[in-house]
């Protein structure tokens, strides 16, 4: 009968108990009867009232993950660690998020957004906006020339919100006289400012422009997806590119159907 329940200590590469015996093993204090198969009477209950019974020592040293001050593992523990399997889930499966949706339009009232500062992340286009269905179409130039009163030239800016959703903001370009209406001018200014700060905008009907609100918190810089502007435009306008006057939307606008 082993009075001391000490598991065997294999001196193998799997072993991590080399010279780690501790002083208590030399104790002469009798172990509780737990370690024997001979049942003994339980210890008498203390007659003194129990006092607040536990003390908490909030120590085990401050956590020091990957801290050079942390003691190195013993050879045996290092050998054990060598059995560790990395938690590199999904690495061999190569899962990546596909870009399937890029909305086009002004940011919504409560939506903080940023605009990509690079000029190559803008795209000039002739846009046909269907207010009723809230849909936008890109119209090829030769078609646009035929229906110039229905389309307008815009600059599409890549934008992103706090949830990392990418969208395109169309900013109407100035007319032939170099001016824009106050709403468009106000939007253009907000887009420029959003290249530096997180903003949200709301329409101010009395002032005839957008009120711009800047986020006060120290918000992190946006994490832009690795897509170029052509890809964003392609996804945003998939099925919404008008290449001829025969397009049903044009036909409807011209009253032909």
């Amino acid at each position: 009968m082993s009075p001391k329940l000490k598991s065997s200590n294999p001196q193998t590469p799997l072993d991590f108990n080399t010279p780690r015996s501790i002083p208590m093993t030399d104790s002469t204090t009798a172990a509780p009867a737990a370690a024997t198969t001979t049942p003994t009477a339980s210890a008498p209950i203390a007659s003194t009232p129990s006092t607040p019974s536990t003390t908490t020592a909030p120590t085990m040293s401050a956590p020091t993950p990957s801290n050079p001050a942390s003691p190195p593992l013993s050879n045996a523990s290092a050998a054990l660690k060598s059995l560790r399997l990395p938690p590199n889930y999904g690495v061999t499966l190569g899962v990546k998020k596909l870009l399937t949706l890029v909305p086009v339009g002004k940011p919504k009232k409560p939506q903080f957004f940023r605009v990509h500062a690079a000029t190559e992340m803008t795209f000039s286009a002739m846009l046909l906006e269907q207010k009723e269905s809230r849909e936008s179409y890109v119209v090829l130039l030769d078609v646009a020339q035929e229906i110039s009163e229905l389309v307008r030239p815009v600059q599409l800016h890549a934008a992103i919100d706090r949830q990392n959703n990418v969208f395109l903001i169309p900013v109407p370009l100035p007319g032939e006289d170099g001016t824009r209406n106050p709403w468009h001018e106000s939007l253009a200014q907000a887009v420029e400012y959003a290249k530096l700060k997180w903003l949200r905008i709301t329409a101010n009907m009395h002032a005839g422009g957008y009120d711009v609100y800047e986020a006060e918190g120290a918000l992190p810089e946006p994490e832009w997806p690795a897509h170029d502007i052509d890809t964003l435009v392609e996804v945003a306008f998939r099925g919404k590119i008008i290449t001829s006057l025969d397009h049903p939307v044009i036909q409807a606008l011209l009253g032909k159907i």
Partner: protein
Amino acid sequence: MHAATFTEGIYLVDFEFHPAGGRQGNPPVPVCLVVRAWPSGRTQRHWQADLQQMAAAPFPTGENALCVAYYASAEMDCFHALGWPHPVHVLDLFTEFRCLTNGLRLPYGNSLLGALLYYGLPSIGGEQKDAMRDLVLTRGPWSDADQLAILDYCETDVVALAHLLTTLQDQIDWPRALLRGRYMKAVSCIQTHGIPIDTAVLTLLQAQWSAIQDQLIADVDSDYGIFDGRTFKTARWESYLVAQQIAWPRLPSGALDLGDATFREMARTHVQVAPIRELRSALSEMRLANLHVGDDGRNRCLLSPFRSRTGRNQPSNSKFIFGPSVWLRGLIKPQPGWGLAYVDWSQQEFGIAAALSGDPAMMAAYRSGDPYLAFAIQAGAVPATATKKTHEFEREQFKACVLAVQYGMGEASLALRINQPVARARQLLELHRRTYRRFWTWSDSAVDEAVLGGRLWAGFGWQIHTRDELNDRSLRNFPMQANGAEMLRIASILLTEAGIRVCAPVHDALLIEAPLDELDAAITTTKTLMQEASRIVLDGFELGGNVKEVRWPDRYMDKRGVVMWNKVMHLLGQPTLA
């Protein structure tokens, strides 16, 4: 490493045994042992009188031999009972069968019989097995014919082991399988030590529990009027909630959700609910007759290692002192001259998530010592100079958010938990996603791996097949829970092999004991080895922890149970805790 590594042989082992004196909670008394060499089939059969004469196992147990068993902790308990040193290497085919099939639907369960049927291997019938077990449990004396029958029955199990090992040998991940076997030896040490129990108070409680229940109900329910005798009346509870204007979660059927988890959650935000929750818990979980306490006053039961899907131990709630209501933990009391220490890893799941995902912000939050406040600071919700004292309210909300993420809680549940609008809960969860982007990318990858790859794994090989498990919450939580289990296993191995007396593993903690004059040294060793275990599992990332000491004549107590403990002790005329 593989089977051929063991040049001194591989030995398939099975004991028949019964608890000493027929009392659950006592150590086992081995009745017989059958050992079969594999693959030769050479067999030894030993009856108990022979076994008691032996100073060590009657087969090689050294560095170059392997001992194979099914549910090896039980066999190792018999080694302890006989005073034999444990084998150096143990392979447990139960743990390997569990590991290989975890997450799959097993038509016949995880028993040896179930494993044999699963692989279409020959076996004896379940009825015959039950009959022979009952014969062993009679504790003898057995006739010559009975002895022969018991030995024959015992031999059928080692023959079954031979079939199983032949089938599994090429599927077994040997190095990590031997580590699991090593843990089964540690489990045996822990089970054999058991937890010291104040048996005088336990006996009083058992004798007077019926009367105490009525007094407790009368005492607590006088402010509520919910009970009718010992029956909780749902309609009265509903009326009470209306009067108190408490919005209580409901089941899809529309009925009030009266589960204990809901009561626990609601008690956090509505303090007036807490006494009723404690009372219900005390009444429903108080099955003291089932608590396994041996003649020596120690709580011993199967720790049921590897039983849960995450690989955690899953001891019976009614047999294990840490299973029932927390106030009953006051029954844990060191024996005279001894002390206990409850040592845990602080915020273990947060630390594991930070280390495994490699999220630098999360790791920095853990390192700060207060990850909840650090999260609030990192999210920009409180100034960098904030402290627990200056921003307690915000810290509580961010703490609830961290825990909600760990539990896979949605915005509605979190809102209920923090007693705030759903919009606030949504905002907090969004802040977590933004602050710990790398963690979320890794967590998403875990779900992808589970769905596409069909399995997830922990650091030392515990795995789950996920073809039938597409619960997003469970999949995301698995790496934290399963690696937490690996960490506890490695710590248990380190501690028991260092000679520390471990009384119980408890989720993210270990309860140890030592003579009073050695307690400080034992605690120091325990802390050091638990830190080492965290670095082994988390690739160098070290988790901090806490120690709660109990020195005789004090008793252990969980602070959540003090009020109920004192109430019951008052009724029993016993000293209460301050």
